């Protein structure tokens, strides 16, 4: 799941649950998730690094 699609779905779900004030928090979490994924801690099967 891309972060964009996750964020859209999360904001829509939060609004449906009556929690629209979660939106800025979810946007902040999305920024942290971008950083986490960019750190590349998990080796992808397509990764050229040695296993």
């Amino acid at each position, binding site marked *: *799941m891309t972060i964009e699609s996750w964020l859209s779905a999360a904001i829509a779900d939060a609004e449906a649950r009556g*929690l629209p004030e*979660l939106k800025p*928090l*979810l946007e902040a*979490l999305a920024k942290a*998730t971008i*950083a*986490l994924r960019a750190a590349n*801690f998990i080796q992808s099967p397509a990764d050229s690094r040695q296993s």
Partner: protein
Amino acid sequence: MMTIEEFGRRLRAREITSEQITEACLRQIEADNPRLNAFITVMADDARRRARQADQELAAGRDRGPLHGVPLSIKDLFDIRGLPTTAASHVRDGHIADRDAPAIAHLIQAGAVFVGKTNLHEFAFGTTNEDSAFGPARNPHDPARSPGGSSGGSAASVAAGMALATIGTDTGGSIRIPAAACGIVGLKPTLGDVPTGGVVPLSHTMDHVGPLTQTVADAALVYHALLGDPHAPIPAPMRVAGLRLAVPRAYFCDLLDDDVRARFEGALERLQSAGAHVADVDIHHAADIMPIYLHLQLADAAACHAATLDEMPERYTPPVRLRLEMGRYVLAEDYVRALAGREVLKREVDAALAQHDALVLPTLPIPAPLLGTSTVRIGSSTQPVRTVMLRLTQGFNVSGHPAISLPAGLTAGRLPVGVQLVGCRGQTDGLLRIALACEALISFKSQV
């Protein structure tokens, strides 16, 4: 207020009794708690009973060790049999503990006297103590300011002389942050050292139990009592001359209030003048600490609170409820990425310590913030208070290394500054030996 060490000497010299020191603490609570809101429950009758018992036991020749008859406060996150454990939340309304947490049982065995249960950020999920069902605890140095959090009431109780020491918990800095904000010592032991049973959890993978005290020696005494080893002596200090200290400057020293930076650099100069070797060291993924911590901590906390978030959401303070709800949206794949990052960070901190005795860095990038503020200015930038307060401590909850915050003087505005020492995993006693050696050079004991 006298230290545990000094009280112990005077107690055994028959110059003071446990009843006398306990009454002094209770008087201080009566005088200052309306102003500081440090306590949720004051245990005056129980404290007097335990103090009387401690004096009778000592007179009869039974000495339980250095905590015998010592008045302590306890963060209201620990179960004490027969009392509510509120966690500063209405979610816990009606709760009464049916047994003592193992850490509490160890303190009772050690002869400690509990003067009360202290205020905290609701469920230990915050750094300022503002979100509490019982109102905010306040900083004894300036009651308009936060005492730090989440163990803010605990730190305030010691800084204001309401207890000789206190017990807190630390998931992202909740012992060290309030210790720094209130000008006292705060020890986060190695992950897993002290049992967390009977403590309302925030993160099953990062919660730590430890003491906040006036001195490092007192921290060592309380730490050993928490382990169930109440007769352990204070470890011998290492020699400062030849001590190898490493400063992780990148990330950890990038964003500091000017006064905090000046106090930190002053402490480094004094250590070097006394013969310590101080070198810079790199923790390669330091900038990834926040995203790793956030994904672990949010998801862990959401898992703990899932049932009550659904059943009684209105009983949470709105900010804490929202942060817990945020954790329900962390994807499993990102949690696993964070777990992998955690292993990388552990190895990098281990490597940084391989050629050094300890890391040394500031504890809190800013002095205690004013209550009610959500952002703070550092140099030319505006930063979220919560993010900044966690910045220098949370990495060692992720990695599990022991860390201790020592008071390091005051800002121009007379607010305390803390300096943190980080030791090798599994060697909390080794860290205490280093801290004992460095304490007089780093610390400036702040008076309230």
